[in-house]
């Protein structure tokens, strides 16, 4: 199979899910064509054809076939381009732990962090409490490691990209302060390491653009 065939990625400039895939492609040095999908304005016929089930980005197209769901895509990239920059550990137990924490970030932490900033007032207090709990768990899991993956960026770090970058900007836009250097020194250090990585930096959306977007979202209808 010729793995050098063109890879296409349908993504959204500000989406942490979309960026997860770009980060992995860049870390592995895989060239790709990026196609911006303005999903909030109009989903393209291409997107609807390639991801009929969820109709969301990111979608990866490789060898004429499409794959959806960011973490599924990341595992696909890992399985297909095995020799460069491993994202998952080699040991099956360590792999299961990486998947566990990535799922924890995806299912539990991301949504509570977002709702703590943006959610309806009635839910806000509960979300803030849950956000603290989630971050505490992650702080403990990170420990003194440079990254969740150890010395290099791995699966959990990629899954937690929202926490490393987007969340800080969401906090700034909403005025809600949950993840501070005081309360979560290890996560703070980690997010600086992550965002400061030369390859990750290339991929992250511009801060001012995201800030403006969040301010508009929080400002327009804080009860949404």
């Amino acid at each position, binding site marked *: 199979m010729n793995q050098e065939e063109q890879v296409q990625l349908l993504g959204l400039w500000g989406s942490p899910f979309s960026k997860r895939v770009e980060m992995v492609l860049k870390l592995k040095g895989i060239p790709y064509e990026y196609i911006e999908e303005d999903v909030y304005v109009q989903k393209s016929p291409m997107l609807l054809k390639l991801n009929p*089930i969820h109709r969301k980005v990111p979608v990866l197209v*490789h*060898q004429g*076939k499409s*794959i*959806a*769901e960011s*973490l*599924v*895509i990341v*595992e*696909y990239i890992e*399985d*297909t381009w095995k020799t460069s920059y491993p994202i998952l550990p080699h040991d*099956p*137990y360590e*792999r*299961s732990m990486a*998947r*566990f924490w990535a*799922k*924890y970030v995806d299912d539990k932490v991301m949504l509570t962090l977002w709702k703590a900033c943006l959610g309806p007032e009635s839910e806000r207090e509960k979300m803030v409490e849950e956000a603290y709990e989630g971050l505490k*768990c992650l702080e403990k899991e990170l420990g003194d490691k440079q990254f969740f993956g150890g010395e290099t960026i791995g699966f959990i770090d990629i899954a937690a990209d929202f926490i490393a970058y987007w969340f800080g900007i969401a906090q700034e836009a909403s005025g809600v302060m949950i993840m501070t250097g005081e309360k979560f020194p290890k996560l703070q250090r980690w997010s600086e390491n992550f965002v400061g990585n030369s390859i990750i930096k290339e991929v992250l959306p511009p801060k001012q653009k995201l800030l403006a977007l969040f301010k508009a979202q929080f400002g327009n209808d804080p009860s949404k």
Partner: protein
Amino acid sequence: MEDEVILLHFWPSIFGMRTMIALEEKGVKYQYREEEDVMNNKTPLLLEMNPVHKKIPVLIHNGKPVCESIIQVQYIDEIWSDKNPFLPKDPYQRAQALFWADFIEKKLCVCGRRVWTTKGEELEAANKEFIELLKILQTELGDKPYFGGNKFGFVDIVLIGFYCWFPAYEKFGNFSMESECSELMAWGKRCMQRESVTKSLPDPERVIGYVLHLKKLYGLE
């Protein structure tokens, strides 16, 4: 050194059934431990092995816990890789299997819960969505005997636990699985011919009894 494998499970849990089926398919010797009162009285072992979620199933392999059923099934497939592989070798086929497992987890599980916990308009909406989701899965199955193709595989393992819950959904949702999704029911019956599945799925009548008990407990009658 022989492996020590323990499965902490609670018999009606669709999640625990996945792990049990996976272990049985691989012929792994394991100790089954029932968390009899998992809602109100979790055992110290469960709390120690799954401190983050405090939920079953937990797979304990040589003293080390693996949590989350789909992750456990992947783990079992990777450790006991010489027998009955669940996931295809081809990366694209693997990705498709993981995609559908994720679909079942994120969409079907959540919706299924609403079928027996809601009433009136909410229930009608839940029923409609549930059947739509099952039809999507049925389309994905197509003409194949299993989601895995000719072999019982990963997606089959992730979905089959629902089969013993279908009569409960039918009863409380007031619809007929056979008339809505007959091909999926045929797939279920096919899977039930496997020993791993019959061992792991409880009697649907028992599940109905359990749901009735929960409905009373939470005042959902």
